[in-house]
């Protein structure tokens, strides 16, 4: 909770920095935000980790238990890396402070989503996270593509919110409460005697959440929005927003509706199968790396959904935690390389030609990120997939496992297209792609992290061992 307050305060500070321009607050904005995120991270762990007292706020609407703190940790760590590599984008834009404030408030929404225990805070968290992102997606005012991305995101986002709210209303009608734990108790007490509209509500909430995490067939906005938005914002959407949305998903479906999993698991299995096939097959034919990463994020969403589908909190939650960490760290590396390369030579695959000779270190970081996203051993991505597969093995959905392995094989092809371009294709230019020192440092740190958590995966998995 203290972390949440600090991030809120930073957002307000960013807005004040615009008003008090004369005091030079704009210059120190980025260091202050980075420091604030570190303080939030440390305070969260020091004061609330494993602390049975004072974890519940506002009549149980927000509960910072270990589950919430672990996922907030992933989000805050990703946000730290993100703020370092996105600094360049902020410096070049005319309204730095607005962008900082919007991103920080989106972060507040993301942290709320990790800790909600009530459907009111679920709804508010999703909206606090989404509304700044609509603005950020459209933040290149004179670029029609950016406008289009923001508009599509807004329309489809509020459409999905409508479904979420209708679902919430129906669930409330059947159970008489917005509290996740009360709903859980009502479900187990009713023994299947709940009215039909309750199940309709659960399915509507499932559809809305699939919109938010971008799973097929509700993924249509993803490639367009990811491509049209500024690259740094795309990186934010595909890492932090996805992690937060999945945390919300787990809380809702594993904890809240876990008791009636037989009603929604077939729908979810169909969504996962569709996402795996559509995302991986479509990604192959993309000419732009950014669009390819958008489709890859859809297939990663399908993998994380498999963890939810298993409905075994003891295995699913650590598995998904590890997956979000591996995926976020890998994506941050990939997007920061892509951002720097695209400034120099565009977003297509040909922009990466000969990068292995031009910038050997950056090419190595990108290669490790691609290997991790493809799930090749020793990188974190391999164990992430492995834990999810182990979870789904214990259920009756083994056919999904076969499908997942087959489509991952297709995935290897398009991730390797980048690696082949970097190392085996001749470069059009010979001079280095210019990269700032601190961004280079972040790339190296995230790459090392990808390898490190791939070598000692047990550390992350056991972290949550005693929390439920």
């Amino acid at each position: 909770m203290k972390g949440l307050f600090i991030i809120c305060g930073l957002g307000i500070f960013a807005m004040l920095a615009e008003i008090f321009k004369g005091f030079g607050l704009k210059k120190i904005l980025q260091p202050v935000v980075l420091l604030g995120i570190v303080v939030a991270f440390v305070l969260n762990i020091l004061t609330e980790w494993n602390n049975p007292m004072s974890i519940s706020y506002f009549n149980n609407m927000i509960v910072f238990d270990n589950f919430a703190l672990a996922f907030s940790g992933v989000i805050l760590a990703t946000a730290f890396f993100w703020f370092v590599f996105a600094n360049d984008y902020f410096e070049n834009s005319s309204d730095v402070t607005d962008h900082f404030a919007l991103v920080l408030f989106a972060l507040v929404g993301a942290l709320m989503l990790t800790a909600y225990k009530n459907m009111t805070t679920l709804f508010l968290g999703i909206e606090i996270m989404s509304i700044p992102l609509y603005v950020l997606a459209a933040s290149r005012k004179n670029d029609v593509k950016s406008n289009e991305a923001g508009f599509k995101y807004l329309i489809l986002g509020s459409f999905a919110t409508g479904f979420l709210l209708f679902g919430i209303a129906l669930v409330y009608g059947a159970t008489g409460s917005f509290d996740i734990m009360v709903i859980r108790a009502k479900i187990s007490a009713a023994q299947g005697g709940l009215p039909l509209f309750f199940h309709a509500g659960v399915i509507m909430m499932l559809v809305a959440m699939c919109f938010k995490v971008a799973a097929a067939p509700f993924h249509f906005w993803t490639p367009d929005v990811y491509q049209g938005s500024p690259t740094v914002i795309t990186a934010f959407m595909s890492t932090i927003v996805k992690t937060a949305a999945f945390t919300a998903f787990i809380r809702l479906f594993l904890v809240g509706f876990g008791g009636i999993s037989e009603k929604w698991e077939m729908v979810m299995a169909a969504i996962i199968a569709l996402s795996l096939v559509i995302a991986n097959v479509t990604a192959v034919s993309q000419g732009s790396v950014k669009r390819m990463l958008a489709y890859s994020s859809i297939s990663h969403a399908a993998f994380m959904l498999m963890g939810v589908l298993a409905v075994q909190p003891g295995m699913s939650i650590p598995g998904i935690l590890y997956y979000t960490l591996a995926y976020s760290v890998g994506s941050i590396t990939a997007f920061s390389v892509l951002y720097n390369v695209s400034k120099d030579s565009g977003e297509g695959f040909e922009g990466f030609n000969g990068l292995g000779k031009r910038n050997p270190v950056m090419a190595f970081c990108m290669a490790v990120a691609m290997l991790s996203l493809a799930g090749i051993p020793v990188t974190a991505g391999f164990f992430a997939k492995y834990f999810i597969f182990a979870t789904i093995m214990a259920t009756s959905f083994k056919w999904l496992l076969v499908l997942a392995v087959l489509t991952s094989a297709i995935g290897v092809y398009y991730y390797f297209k980048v690696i082949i371009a970097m190392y085996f294709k001749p470069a059009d230019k010979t001079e280095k792609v210019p990269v700032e020192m601190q961004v280079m440092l972040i790339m190296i740190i995230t790459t090392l992290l990808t390898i490190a958590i791939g070598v000692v995966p047990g550390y992350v998995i056991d972290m949550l061992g005693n929390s439920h």
Partner: protein
Amino acid sequence: MRGILLQSAIISTPIEWYIMLSAVLFTIGACGVMVKRNAIIIFACVELMLNAVNLLLVAFSSYHSDASAQVFVFFIMAVAAAEVAVGLAILSMIYRNLKSIDINVLSKLKH
């Protein structure tokens, strides 16, 4: 006297009718979002969807004699207002760049 009559009429109406009414309103809104080409009408349809939810929540609130759903309605109203504010800002930006609010002009991103 009229007030009491009205109140008893509201309470004696079965809850299923409210569910039906808001489901119909919600469906009209959802169909409008998918079919209409004018961006302003699309926003209006999203609002219709949200108001269908508000109606349903208020009906359930009186059915359960529980005020929390009415508080939820206030949250929905506030958030819907924020969303429309952002939406209209983006829309005016699009109009400035493209001189149109027909969503068919928005096809610059390749499929």
